């Protein structure tokens, strides 16, 4: 069988297949739907955020504390902001001791603001294990603790 003949045979078979077609399969259908409402939860912020000045007269620090919400989050994010700048740190505890060294380690300019007499605002957010964060808690102010004649002597509340 030559190539031309084979091509003709194939063409004829193709035409026959196109004419005969494939048997159509059809079936009945029926639909039924069930609706439910899904709502995403929210991460509750810490409550009762307070600031307590601790330490000695020559080296003060501000201890910011808060109460854990229910359910308790995986951790807390503490934001220290002022003068248009902010920095954050995370902890699993329900308090954070704010010191000069902490502020200097987080963001030098924040410490500079404190040295310049700017009052900083400290707020706390709950962080869920998934990464979802709560709204911030109420903010508490901290400022540089000035010791007469010696300059800055740590961080204090208010």
């Amino acid at each position, binding site marked *: 069988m030559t190539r031309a003949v084979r091509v003709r045979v194939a063409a004829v078979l193709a035409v026959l297949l196109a004419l005969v077609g494939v048997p159509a399969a059809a*079936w*009945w*259908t*029926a*639909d*039924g*739907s*069930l*609706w*439910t*409402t*899904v*709502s*995403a*939860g*929210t*991460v509750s912020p810490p409550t009762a955020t307070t600031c307590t000045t601790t330490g000695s007269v020559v080296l003060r620090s501000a201890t910011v504390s808060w109460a854990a919400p229910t359910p308790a989050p995986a951790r807390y994010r503490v934001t220290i902001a002022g003068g248009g700048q902010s920095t954050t740190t995370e902890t699993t505890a329900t308090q954070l001791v704010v010191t000069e060294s902490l502020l200097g380690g987080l963001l030098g300019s924040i410490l500079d603001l404190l040295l310049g007499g700017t009052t900083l605002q400290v707020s706390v957010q709950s962080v*869920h*294990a*998934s*990464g*979802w*964060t709560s709204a911030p808690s109420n903010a508490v102010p901290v400022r540089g603790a000035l010791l007469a004649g010696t300059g800055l002597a740590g961080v204090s509340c208010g």
Partner: protein
Amino acid sequence: MGVESSRRARPPGPGARRTARARRGAARAVAVLVLAALPLSAGAAWATWSASQAVSTADVRSGTFGVETSWQSFPDLAGMMPGESRDGVASLTHTGDGTWRYRLSVAYDGPVQPTVTFYPRPTCTGTPLAAGALSPLTYARGATTQVCVRYTLPAGSPNAWQGQSAQVAVTATLESRPS
């Protein structure tokens, strides 16, 4: 009396007998041709008798095909957090005729879109049934089956979903299928 023929009868000879036989054969052939041509001729009448009678008066009626869906175990999907799963069990009941299989699909109306996983059994265990896939079993007319539906809020759900809600529809499509 009478006229006498001037010709006298004589017994035919062999040549005359052959001629007569040939003529008779030709005449028969012509007759056959004429008879054969009669039906083809324009003027020929051609009729066929026929008779018919209804054997029975069969009443052909199409069947019906429907589904009733309900929650056998209603899923409480309130306050879901990322990574959390909740289950519900849906009941599918066929109404009408024929054997059937089913497909499942999900649709959302709202910003929160949990992942929905189907299991072709009353518990959310074993091999799931992909959305849009045909059920592994064929069911009898009027049968009821259960489907476990698992809703999972993905671990990476955006923070903006907090406190948001949505309507989630699970649709069962039954298809008439031969057993």
